Every structure is written in C-alpha cells, then in structure tokens.
C-alpha cells in the first residue's frame, strides 16, 4: 500500500515453472516392441519371398502401356469429378428450389443414380451409346438443333464419363446440399437485404461458405473415384490402368505382382490427392479461423529457424 497509487494495478506476477516427475508409460513400450517385431517380420517376408515379384514390378512400372493407363485413369477421374461437381451443384440448387418441378426432377435423378450400382450403370451406358448411333439435341418430336454421330466420339470413353460422372453427381448433390444448409440463415438474410437476388446470394455468399463443409467429403469422393475408375471394365474401356496391368499380368502368368504394381500407382495418386486436399481445405478455412494453421512446410521452416537460433 504505497501512498502514490500506481498507474496500472493489473501487473502480471512472476511465473515459476511447475517441477514434477513425468508419468512413465511401460505399457506403451511393450506395445511398441510387439508392433515393431511384426513389422520387421513383414518387411523380411516382402523382401525375401520371390512370389511378390519385385523385379517384375520394377521392370513394368514405368512401361508405356502402364503409364498410358495411369494417364487415362487420371483423365477419367478429373473429368468425372468435374461433371459430378458441376451437375451436383445444379442438382442441389434445384433440390432446394421452391419450384416443385425442379425439386422433383432433382429428387428423381438422385433416387435413380444413387440407387443402382455404378458397375451396372456403366454397363447400361455402354449399351445405350451403342443403341443410339446419333445424338441429337432439339425439341422433343420437333426440330433438331444439332446431331452428333456417336461413332465420331470415342464411345467407350464417353460411356465411362457418363457412367462415372452422373453417378458422382447424385452423391455430390447431397454433399453440396448439406453444405448449403450448414450456412447460417442470417447470411442469406443479410445478402437479400443488400438487394442481392437468390442466385447472387448463392454464388457470392452461400456457396463460398458452404465450401468449407463441401471440400472434405469431396476429397474423399475424388479418392474413391480414382479407384472406381477400375470398374470401367464393365463397358469395357481397356486403356485404363487396372485393365492394362491385369492384361500384362495374364500374359506373363504373373497376375499377382501386376496387381501390386497397380496398387502402388493408386497409392501414389491418392497420396498426391491428399496433399492437394489439405491445401484446398486450408484455403476455404479463411475467415472461419482467426489465424490459419501453418502448413507442414512452414512448420519445418520454423523448426529449422528455431534450431538454428538455439
């Protein structure tokens, strides 16, 4: 209690560290030892058992038919996901529309395409494309605006895109719808009060915020799509990765190593997708977090800097 009152009494006090013996975890050490033992056995078997055919895998992994197959698989994945996402957004908006015709159409689409196996859909598309040798766009029973000979398209690839893309759209629309519904109603209200139309509100206010909810499951969908492309054998589209790998395996009477080879490629591709997903999620977290968490690269940089300074 000094006579001259201090300017600010809210001064922090000293901060002595807590000194305590940390808890020991013997169970963790035993568990880790057991896991390490099994791991070592697995690695030993992988390296020494000739049935895995590592040399064969090494020989074929970058061979032209396989690399081309990887290219087709990537192209199928990307294009199907684009179709799925764009059509999915359209279907979700239709589903939330007050117009019963739009709403009902969307419901019917989702019902049909989610309710049947994608393998069966691929098979059906292949047959439908074979049935219709020309595609025309016009008024039903009226004039046609343009016609397209399906033989000029690459039928198998188009069938694969239709099968994968439309099926995906049914799933994506539900993901997008959940995303739209997750956005606070006050957002739409504020945008409407500014004089925005329903579409402007969706595009500038609601969808960008819905993305935060939409992106993680879309990442899963993309990874899942990458693997689902192996089903286009139902058409059959033969240039894709797994078909090529199996064909080579059958020819060499070594199907097993070739399946491993395909798995290695799928794992490599999904790993790349996971990295991409991380950065996209981070991008859409803007505004939802006070500060974005550091990327792994930033974390490493910081560690190095601290290490250098200390």
């Amino acid at each position, binding site marked *: 209690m000094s006579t001259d009152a201090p300017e600010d009494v809210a001064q922090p006090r000293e901060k002595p560290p807590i000194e305590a013996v940390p808890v020991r975890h013997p169970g963790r050490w035993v568990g880790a030892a057991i896991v390490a033992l099994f791991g070592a056995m697995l690695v030993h078997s992988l390296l020494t058992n000739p049935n895995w055919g590592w040399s064969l895998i090494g020989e074929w992994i970058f061979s032209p038919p396989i690399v081309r197959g990887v290219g087709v698989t990537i192209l199928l994945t990307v294009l199907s996901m684009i179709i799925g996402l764009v059509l999915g957004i359209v279907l979700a908006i239709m589903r939330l529309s007050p117009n019963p015709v739009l709403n009902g159409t969307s419901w019917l689409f989702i019902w049909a395409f989610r309710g049947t196996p994608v393998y069966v859909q691929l098979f059906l598309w292949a047959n439908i494309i074979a049935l219709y040798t020309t595609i025309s766009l016009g008024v039903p029973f009226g004039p046609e605006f343009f016609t397209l000979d399906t033989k000029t398209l690459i039928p198998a690839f188009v069938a694969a895109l239709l099968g994968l893309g439309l099926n995906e759209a049914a799933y994506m629309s539900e993901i997008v719808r959940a995303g739209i519904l997750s956005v606070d109603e*006050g957002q739409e209200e504020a945008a409407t009060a500014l004089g925005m*139309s329903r579409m402007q509100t969706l595009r500038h206010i609601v969808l960008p*915020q819905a993305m935060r909810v939409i992106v993680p499951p879309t990442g899963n969908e993309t990874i899942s799509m990458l693997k689902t492309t192996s089903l286009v054998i139902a058409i059959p589209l033969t240039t894709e990765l797994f078909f090529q790998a199996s064909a080579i395996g059958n020819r060499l009477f070594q199907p097993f190593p070739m399946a491993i080879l395909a798995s290695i490629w799928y794992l490599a591709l999904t790993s790349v997708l996971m990295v991409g997903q991380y950065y996209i999620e981070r991008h859409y977290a803007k505004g939802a977090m*006070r500060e974005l968490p550091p990327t792994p690269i930033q974390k490493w940089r910081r560690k190095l800097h601290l290490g250098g300074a200390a």
Partner: protein
Amino acid sequence: MSEKPVKVLAENVHKAYGRNEVLRGIDMEIRTGEVACIIGPSGGGKSTFLRCINHLEKIDSGRLSVDGELIGYKQRSGKLYEMHDKEVAEQRRSIGMVFQRFNLFPHMTAAENVMCGPVVVRRDNKKIARERAIELLGKVGLGDRGDSYPMQLSGGQQQRVAIARALAMDPDLMLFDEPTSALDPELVGEVLDVMRRLAESGMTMIVVTHEIGFARQVGDLLAFIDKGVVAEIGEPREILANPQSKRFQDFLGKVL
C-alpha cells in the same frame, strides 16, 4: 416537422406465421429524417415489423409503403399485382438493414463486406468500390481495419462494419434490429455513437432497441409494440414521462 414528406407508412399491417398472429394491425407514420425507436416485450413482433418493411416477410393484410410506393406490390388501375423478385430486390437497395447478430460475411474481409453490395448488386467498379468502402469504414472509426476478417474483430467493431456495409448501398432508410443487444456493455457506446452521428446527418432510421437513453436523446418518435399492435406512440420524452397503460408502465419498470 409535419411539412416533411412521409417516408414510411404502415396502415393496419397484419402478419401471421401459421396460426400465430404476430402483427395484428400496426399503424405507424415516419417522416423523412426522423428517427423512430421501437421498444416492447420479447415476441411482440418488433423484428417481424422491421422485416416486413424491406419485404423479408410478406404481409397478410393492410398496406405498407416507403416513399409512397407499396412494398412488394404494384398498383395499377385499382388492382394490386405482386412484384417480381427482381423488383423487390431493387426496392430493398435503398433500405439498409443492421441485424442483432451482425451477419457479416465471414469469408470476406471488412472492406470486402462493405464493397460486396455495390460490386455484386450495382456492378460498381471494384477499385472505386474499395476506396469507397475504406472511406465508409473510416466514418465508423475503422479506417485501418479494412483487411481484418470479421472473426478478428470485436463485437462492437463487427457491428460498425455491418453499418458501413448497409450504408455502402446509399440507402435513404436504415432499419436497425436490436443492434447493440449482442454486445458487451462496454462496446454498446461505440455503436450508438455511430448511429447518433448517422441520425444527425439526416438519415431516416427505424431502430428496435432497449436503449431507452438513446431513444430519449436521439429519437423523434417512440413506439411501444406489444402483442402485435402499437400500444403507445409519441414524442419519446413525453410518453416515457407519462405511460398510459399498465403494460407500458410495467415494461419500463423492467428496462429502466
């Protein structure tokens, strides 16, 4: 006072949600440049009335007009026609609204929030809109926070951004729905200051609030809305000094 033109005119406005009659015949007349404050118990229909004024809600019966133009309807040869969504959106442009929970767009910075209306709705040039946004933020005392996201701002700052956002559309009528109710007591003053200055600049304002002090100092009109009707209305100092009904007396006893 009475020579000023009528800005907002409500005549026997009714609104029900299902069987819940929320507005049961509201009458109110607000002249250009006036500040009308609305008080009343929770659930009395204050927010609903504000939302009817910019047609966020459709009224069931009665007439509601701004600048002599019916809200949401067109009158041609004695017949009423419902307005197209586009025309309603156009009417809303000149009516700004500020919400209790701010409703800032969290994925945009403060400046982007403010310029968003002009750029999207009026298709203003982005660069000019941004300059204007910074200027408006300056007016609400946030000239240096243009690049902050709403999450990085205090409640009082967020509400001031929300006011700037509404002002960016150059409205000539501003609606405030309990703009300070979600704020810590020490932040209420900064928002009320901005509103007071806005009132002094001649803006017509309708303010739902529990800040009786603000109503007394700034308000030209004070309405007590209870159970969906305007129970008492008049010059704020006058009606606060002699509340007529028991309900109003009880209500004032609770908020003062």
